């Protein structure tokens, strides 16, 4: 499956890109995080503490164990601080 993966704020800074296309068989955000961590230390650094991360799937806030079936876009970022 081909996924657009987006990163924001300090997650983006640690990984070094804001957006990339990834070929993966991960079935959940958590599985994708594990896969990326093993690829490169940049990901290991960005994803070192999952409790500090939020995930959106197809632009909808969700959980790390949500399904990635038929998903096109996934985003990882810190807790929001707007307002």
């Amino acid at each position, binding site marked *: 499956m081909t996924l657009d993966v987006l990163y924001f704020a300090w997650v983006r800074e640690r990984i070094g890109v804001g957006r990339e296309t990834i070929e993966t068989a991960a079935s959940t955000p958590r599985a994708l995080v594990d896969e990326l961590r093993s690829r490169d230390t940049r990901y290991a650094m960005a994803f070192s503490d999952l409790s500090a991360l939020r995930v959106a799937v197809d632009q909808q806030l969700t959980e790390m164990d949500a399904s990635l079936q038929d998903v096109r876009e996934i985003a990882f970022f810190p807790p929001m601080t*707007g307002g």
Partner: protein
Amino acid sequence: MDIRVQIDPFIPGALLDEFSGVQTGAGAIVSFTGLVRDLDGELQAMEIEHYPGMTEKALMQIIEEAQARWPLLGTLIVHRYGTLTANEPIMMVATASKHRKAAFEAADFLMDYLKSRAPFWKREITAQTADWVDATKADEIALKSWD
């Protein structure tokens, strides 16, 4: 429902009058304006990043949730992104209703949800530092108070 995510500055009073002008039957209008705080004169800039596409959807869902809870005649959310300086307006919400409690509660609710559910991230730039603002426990508690 009026949602604006913009890089350009806005003038809260002008927006409030514009918002009030299109309401019919409203007896109460509440506005909230969030401003860039000065950090004892140390702040050189505030940078705001957001997630284009998701931001608009999230704000729309937050407003729909407020409309389901209170009898609102009108709602407005404006939020800037990009580089801002001290004392500039960051964002504004406004609500219109027949009665004051609905307008107050809905505006408070919109702010709590926007803080923790809309994909914006702020960074404060001083001469020495460029730190991402941390989400606070108080924001999470405020959000849960509406459950």
